[in-house]
């Protein structure tokens, strides 16, 4: 087995950052078995470059297997005699981010599963509370309902006011994508928008008029209104203010993509309902904590080739909303897109994953 290879492993374990191609050897403690894959070792080098991974994390990276389909664990070029069979050895520095991300998301998934705090017991339902149901924009409706329930205001009841939550269409599309990313059941953002465009139909939960019409037919519902002004929500819900953390901050495209990939990896360890719950309670707060102070990270931007369709769809939604006669809290024009934001420099999903891995240096291995 390659002494140089094991020496590089030792170098990386000690926090070294020298790339494999320029590593000229050093002290090694050759171990039994096989060298860790190039993907794992390069990820460790990136972690070392970005910070100081804990010894626990270092060992987890070295022993990791990447979940899901992709290239197998690759050998380091020049680390051993040439083999007649198997994939070609590689220079790990040339591996695409996606290969390192597979390893990183597997590690993040186990971290999410193992470090989840126990769920908070909801307080007893308040005796006098407004009967409500939140539907529409899932990024707001689902967590806000959960937060209100925990605060003693569970939804439901005969005659409940149904609040169909909405926003401008690009924002709602980004939130539907982020919500589905938690469930791991969505393609990357550009493909998601392309699919919505190809179907020429809004996602069910943000087709606000359809949602309102469906709710009208449900037994036990009271007044159905569309809410486009989030500031009006506390009053409509009979609360002085919304519970803290009730509405998670919007995800950037990189954060949504990382969430999507971690969700798939988490699905290997827990059932689907647990998966969404864990990601909401553990991953989203960690992502939020990573965000720098200042303005929130930009939401995913609709690619230029789909903007005409989004504008047309928003105009149709606005027209239907006005014609339908449902009470609207806020300006019905609030569903229309604002000026399109320019595509900023894309944030690296791998960098985000590396920062998240480093964020908890005291993490405990299983």
């Amino acid at each position: 087995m390659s002494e140089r290879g094991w020496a590089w492993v030792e170098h990386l374990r000690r926090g070294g950052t020298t790339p494999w191609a320029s590593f000229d050897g050093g002290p090694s403690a050759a171990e039994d078995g096989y060298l860790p894959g190039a993907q794992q070792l390069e990820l460790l080098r990136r972690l070392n470059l970005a910070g100081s991974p804990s010894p626990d994390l270092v060992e987890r990276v070295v022993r990791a297997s990447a979940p899901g389909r992709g290239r197998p664990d690759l050998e380091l070029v020049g680390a051993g005699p040439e083999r007649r069979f198997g994939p070609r050895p590689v220079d790990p520095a040339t591996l695409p981010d996606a290969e390192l991300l597979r390893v990183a998301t597997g590690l993040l998934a186990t971290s999410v599963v193992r470090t989840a705090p126990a769920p908070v017991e909801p307080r007893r339902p308040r005796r006098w509370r407004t009967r409500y149901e939140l539907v529409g924009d899932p990024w707001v409706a689902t967590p806000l309902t959960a937060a209100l329930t925990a605060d003693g205001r569970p939804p439901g009841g005969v005659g409940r006011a149904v609040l169909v939550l909405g926003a401008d269409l690009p924002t709602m599309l980004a939130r539907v994508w982020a919500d589905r990313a938690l469930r791991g059941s969505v393609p990357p953002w550009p493909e998601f928008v392309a699919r919505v465009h190809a179907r020429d139909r809004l996602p069910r939960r943000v087709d606000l008029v359809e949602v309102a019409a469906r709710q009208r037919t449900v037994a036990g519902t009271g007044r159905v209104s569309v809410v486009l002004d989030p500031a009006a929500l506390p009053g409509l819900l009979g609360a002085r203010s919304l519970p803290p953390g009730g509405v998670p901050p919007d995800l950037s495209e990189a954060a949504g993509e990382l969430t999507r990939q971690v969700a798939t990896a988490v699905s290997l360890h827990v059932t689907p309902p647990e998966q969404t719950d864990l990601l909401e309670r553990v991953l989203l707060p960690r992502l939020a904590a990573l965000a720098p102070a200042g303005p929130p990270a930009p939401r995913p931007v609709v690619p230029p080739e789909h903007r005409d369709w989004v504008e047309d769809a928003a105009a149709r939604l606005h027209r239907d909303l006005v014609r339908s006669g449902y009470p609207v809290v806020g300006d019905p024009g609030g569903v229309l897109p604002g000026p399109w934001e320019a595509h900023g420099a894309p944030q690296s999903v791998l960098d985000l994953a590396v920062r998240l891995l480093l964020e908890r240096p005291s993490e405990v291995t299983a």
Partner: protein
Amino acid sequence: MSERVLLHVGTPKTGTSYVQDVLWRNREVLAEAGILYAAERFDAHFLAALDLMELPWGGLQSEAIGAWDDLAARVRAFDGTAIISHEILATASRAQIGRALASLGHGDGTEVHLVLSVRDLVRQIPAEWQENVKHRAQLSFADFLDEVRDPERATRIGSWFWGVQEVPEILDRWGQDLPPEHVHVVTVPPPGGAPEVLWKRFSQALGLDGVPLDLEQAERANPSLGVPETTLLRRINKRVNAELPPADYRPLVRELLAHQTLSRRRRSPRLALPPALHPWVSQIAASWTEEVERRGYDVVGDLADLAGAPPVEQYADPDHPRERQVALAGVDAIKTLLLDDARLRHDVERLQAEVDDLRGALERAYATPSYRLRRALYLRLEGSLLGRTTLRGYRRLRGRSTP
């Protein structure tokens, strides 16, 4: 502690489904012979493999959580011989293989035997493309061949193909800690032979000779598709992939269309390796044969089987099919979908009648005059700030919050 574990790790398309079906249907007979095939459901070992290898599989992975550890625990607790079989195990990484062998008692007194069934690439390459198409792939046969022939194997297709098909490499990964006499390579006979020959080889490798197994009811194989049928499926994938979720694709496209309809069209031309690729494949087969012989594994069958059949005389290119054949396959597909739709419509009508009955009962319960009056008043009050304040006061006085 198991005395012996026989671990059959692939490769795909070598009669593995048949072997697993025989083992599954004969669990009790095997148990009487002191052999454990630990499975509560027919796909138990598939789930265990997904769990071991951390593979998402269209949502099925949630049913696989903990499945490998459960299987390994049952094997360890059994006093005799245990058999584990699934072909996707072929792609396991060295770390996963190390974990698997340790969990089965390797190095702790259990004798682990590896079984790898292998088939010539002349048949495996088109079969793998077809399997990809049955799993939503849209790429042409030519593109598939390009990815498989790319020495970098950097794509999803290329890395998976060689991960489950490169015989010496699979044997190297899985057999690294095993003596060569505990590694058994079962070759699939050339096409056209008696189907019993392959089973006899499996029976020998898995130590089943003499066990009175019932082979009559086992399902022989995954049904395969012809050239126009595979082309049709690929075109369907292009149209539906964006809109049909995996949970619907599986029963509708793979099962209803591919397996239950299109695979029954047996007279259309069969998929084959392009004649121009035969020299390349022959070279690979020769190197594999030489390597397997050199390592001294136990070969059940004949390594010459790996050479494969000579090129077909009339090659039907699935990327340029005869459109009339594709159209006829399409008509059969439409017929199946119409009949299935008719069946579903009848189901919907029946269920709608039940829903109407239930809704009527619910509405009657809400239809008393006093309820209607209270609801109208409530809705009016909810519409204004003064009304909502009044309602809150009323609730407080009344002691509950519904009107």
